[in-house]
């Protein structure tokens, strides 16, 4: 075993959008020879498996249908098996994993599983979601199928297939409104050379992150709801944020409204920190905050972009500004007693309990 992190790509997209065609073309390229494919088979007939049968020796089928229903145990078993096989040289030492999701699956449960699974957390790079959207039917599918909208919202990159058959300007605009960050690529999966797409799967250098700058209303009140009540908006703050206040507010917000906070991406100016902190969460899943060394000539100001469902952007902004103003008030309360010594003991649920004492140097 070595410390090399393996790239992980999730291929998502609604039924018939072209996921399998994309995957087949990616795998046909010589550069993908060291890739492992995990395919989710929906139902009894493994059509997708037949399509990529040429790489069956490295294809792991997850039993039981949709990834979103029974993925946790399945993906854990699958990951353990493939890493044991890889470390024992029973399969070639793959450097990339492609996970093709079923057309009606939402990526979020899989992302959650990969986030908490110890194999994924220690052996894989952060997964990147590629969502394929049908250039002809995409707009109506986004309006009628909540799963399709969530697949687009979860995307790090969006590929519009069949661009020659559809009018894709409106589709691009709709996608931009529900996912302001993901770059949109128009790609004819049958005719265009695959080399045009391969660069999307290269590692993203730090200089190209964060993908925070995007076209969303600067004033939350100006945002408009789209299909399924989804809307995006941005908040910004010129003053540096107090990290403790931000964490308090965000955990409280996610506790109550996590299911409707579909995605948040932010670049934060934190008090006392020279560089920006990147914040990213999707529903209840919060990614570890990422620190960048400097602002790269960007103005030092915090900016958060939200994609929410059935929540008032104006109320979120009011709440954000109220909570961020709290540290100013509490700064005058220094010395107030809020500490209970471990040795003091206490009662929980009516039972007396006592905690072990931490040495003073550990408490800081």
């Amino acid at each position, binding site marked *: 075993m070595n410390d090399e992190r393996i790239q992980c790509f999730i291929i998502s997209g609604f039924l018939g959008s072209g996921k399998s065609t994309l995957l087949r073309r990616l795998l046909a390229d010589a550069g993908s020879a060291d890739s492992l494919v995990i395919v989710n088979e929906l139902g009894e007939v493994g059509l997708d498996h037949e399509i990529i049968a040429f790489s069956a020796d490295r294809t792991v089928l997850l039993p039981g249908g949709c990834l979103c229903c029974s993925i946790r145990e399945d993906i854990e078993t699958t990951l353990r098996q493939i890493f044991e096989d890889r470390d024992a040289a029973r399969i070639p030492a793959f450097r990339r994993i492609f996970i093709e999701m079923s057309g009606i699956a939402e990526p979020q449960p899989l992302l959650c599983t990969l986030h908490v699974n110890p194999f994924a957390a220690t052996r894989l790079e952060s997964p990147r979601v590629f969502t394929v959207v049908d250039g002809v039917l995409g707009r109506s599918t986004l309006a009628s199928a909540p799963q399709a909208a969530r697949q687009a919202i979860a995307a790090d990159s969006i590929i519009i297939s069949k661009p020659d058959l559809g009018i894709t300007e409106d589709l691009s605009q709709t996608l931009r409104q529900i996912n302001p960050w993901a770059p949109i690529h128009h790609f004819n999966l049958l005719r265009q050379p695959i080399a045009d797409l391969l660069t999307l799967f290269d590692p993203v250098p730090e200089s190209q992150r964060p993908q925070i700058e995007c076209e969303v209303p600067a004033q939350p009140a100006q945002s408009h709801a789209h299909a399924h009540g989804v809307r995006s908006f941005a908040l910004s703050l010129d003053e540096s944020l107090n990290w*403790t206040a931000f964490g*308090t507010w965000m955990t*409280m917000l996610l506790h109550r409204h996590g299911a409707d906070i579909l995605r948040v991406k932010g670049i934060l100016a934190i008090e*006392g920190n020279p560089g920006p902190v990147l914040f990213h969460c999707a529903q209840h899943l919060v990614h570890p905050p990422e620190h960048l060394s400097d602002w790269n000539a960007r103005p030092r100001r915090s900016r958060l972009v939200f994609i929410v469902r059935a929540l008032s952007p104006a109320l979120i902004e009011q709440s954000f500004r109220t909570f961020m103003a709290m540290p100013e008030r509490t700064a005058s309360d220094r010395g107030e007693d809020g500490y209970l010594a471990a040795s003091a003991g206490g009662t929980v649920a009516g039972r007396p309990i006592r905690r072990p004492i931490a040495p003073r140097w550990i*408490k*800081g």
Partner: protein
Amino acid sequence: MCALCAALGGSRFWTDAAGHEAFSRDGGKLSIRAERQERVRLLNSIAAFYAVSIRDWGGSSYMLENESGQRANVYNLNGIWSQLEELGGKACDPLEPGLLSYLAATQGADRSER
């Protein structure tokens, strides 16, 4: 569990800045005690709306207590909100206009005192 002090709940939460090398305060290290103290102060400003008080118990967990003396022990912010709801008897919603008015009013009162 913390291997040094044998206290439960030693695992990091995403909001923890102290002990994280990338976080600093004007070039200096953040102290865990100071960060927790600040967090407890902020939390008490909110918890007062629910008639609950919060204390840092031994530097490794938080003790919540309501006016009738009911207590709950939690390890991180995620746990605090559900216990605050239980002890306070109402949902913790940062978008609730009543809570926002309360926080704004206490901020205004504090400024006028100063």
